[in-house]
């Protein structure tokens, strides 16, 4: 996803001279092509995320479209007030890009787990929150963010993520992508965990459960229509996110269902419970511990499906 981001950014920058990239002393063997091609529109600001974000707001208020790039929580939580006051309040055209979505930096430890960012970014007025699912979506999301007038948060995974789409989907901010149709349950995923979700859906099909899959790449503004259609047309909805179950995709979908949805559909959020991950392990290992592996998604969906069919 990171490579797709930089490629798309370079391509956009060739056509839009307002585009500017700031990095917080990260991006080794990643952002160099941008820096070489556009030296006047690039700066490594050092390990100083608060300054990077205030700086980005200043650049944007002088007409630039600014991408800030760093890892994990550094470009968001470290400088949250700059994002709130300097970027969001001024509706500055700043796109905050974080690499290392969810548990990607698994064994690096808790400081590097990006597991509350969607909730926190979603709470900010004027902020658009996007978590692409694969390199194709990441490239499309980068282009869309570059053209989006206001603040954006782009949550990327890593390099070498599995590619989900054979052909580029129709990517629009705020519009879910229907990955496959199904009449029984709906699986709504944001970000790279869509890959596990698709694998899980294949196994569910073998067990006789046909799942609709939505890639909810935009967590805010949420595609309310797609959620309500799923509530009408299928019997169960499960949200899957590599993030705390508090405040992210699952919460956003729950808000829509509880205020606007029917009372018939059964609903479940999969994600990290309200706790810090205290285990050491790879992303795959930790996904298994936190019910985000393919097997866990299958198991949780079947449990929910049994409620629909009154088997429990």
């Amino acid at each position, binding site marked *: 996803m990171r490579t797709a981001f930089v490629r798309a950014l370079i391509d956009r920058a060739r056509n839009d001279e307002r585009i500017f990239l700031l990095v917080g002393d990260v991006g080794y063997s990643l952002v160099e092509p941008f820096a070489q091609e556009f030296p006047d529109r690039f*700066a490594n600001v*050092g390990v*100083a995320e608060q300054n990077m974000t205030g700086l980005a707001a200043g650049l944007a208020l002088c007409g630039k479209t600014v991408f800030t790039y760093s890892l994990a929580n550094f470009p968001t939580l470290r400088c949250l007030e700059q994002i709130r006051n300097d970027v969001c309040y001024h509706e500055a055209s700043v796109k905050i890009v974080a690499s290392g979505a969810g548990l990607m930096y698994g064994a690096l430890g808790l400081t590097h787990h990006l597991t509350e960012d969607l909730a926190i970014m979603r709470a900010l007025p004027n902020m658009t929150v996007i978590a692409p699912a694969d390199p194709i979506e990441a490239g499309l999301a980068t282009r869309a963010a570059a053209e989006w007038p206001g603040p954006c948060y782009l949550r990327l995974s890593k390099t070498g993520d599995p590619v989900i789409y054979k052909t580029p989907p129709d990517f629009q901010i705020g519009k879910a992508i229907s990955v496959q149709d199904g009449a029984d349950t709906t699986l709504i995923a944001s970000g790279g965990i869509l890959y596990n979700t698709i694998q899980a859906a294949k196994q569910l099909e073998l067990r006789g459960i046909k799942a609709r899959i939505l890639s909810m790449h935009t967590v805010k503004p949420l595609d309310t229509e797609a959620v309500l259609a799923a509530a009408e047309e299928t019997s169960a909805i499960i949200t899957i996110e590599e993030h705390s179950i508090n405040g992210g995709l699952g919460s956003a979908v729950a808000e829509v269902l509880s205020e606007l949805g029917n009372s018939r559909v059964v609903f479940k959020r999969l994600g990290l419970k309200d706790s810090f991950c205290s285990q050491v392990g790879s992303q795959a290992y930790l996904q298994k511990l936190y019910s985000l592996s393919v097997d866990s998604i299958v198991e949780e969906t079947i449990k929910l499906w049994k409620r629909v069919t009154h088997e429990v």
Partner: protein
Amino acid sequence: MSTQRRVNYKVLATRIRAHALRMTHRAKSSHIGGSLSIADLLAVLYNRILRLDPAHPDWDDRDRFILSKGHAAAALYAALAERGFFPLDWLDTFYQDGSHLPGHITYGVPGVEVSTGSLGHGLSIGCGMALVGKRDNRTYRVFTLLSDGECDEGSTWEAALFAPHHHLDNLIAIVDYNKIQSFGAVKEVLNLDPLADKWQAFGWAVREINGHDFNQIENALLGIPFKVGQPSCVIAHTVKGKGVSFMEGQLAWHYRHPSDEELQQALAELGVSE
């Protein structure tokens, strides 16, 4: 400096002080001390230094002025109204329900570049604006006015590192060094001295002035950049509450608003009639 200019500065500074006193009195609001300490600096900036066009507040090549100590909003709103950015009677609505003018300086008010209020934000935003100026060969300059208290913020020093590294000689940081922060004397809360040495060590060209001496203020601000290729820092030694005897150097006037009698006395000291 010509006598006439000195008179002009004095008149504008007095008007800014009188407006700020009336505004905080009416609003029963805080921060009059830090508004009075910057009145002379604002008078020189808005009378002579800043290249602005009140009829076109968004003019591309205007100098940018950022009040990073956003709590001194009353003084800046007063300066902007006096320069004709918006009608003087807006000042009567400061803090009021449905007003254009909230208690911390806010973007969207004509002439205001940036909303501030949380300390330690202004210099970074100023760096961004100055970087555009440099990269795009623009002629505008970026002035940021900081409090001494906000020199406690790490983000101020992140920006202070950035500007010299990028040779932003179109950026000016003015520190309103009135020696009193929210909860006490700067020396007792978190000592900043030697403050000029710190900025110099970070790579700024520094001048220390008396922030109430129009001659010194004007000389410094006409002399920027002090060194080509380096950002300029003006340490303005000021007095919190300057101009009103019973407010000068008193911590309480970071919080208190003047009573009816205190307003009368303050205006009388300034030589302003009600």
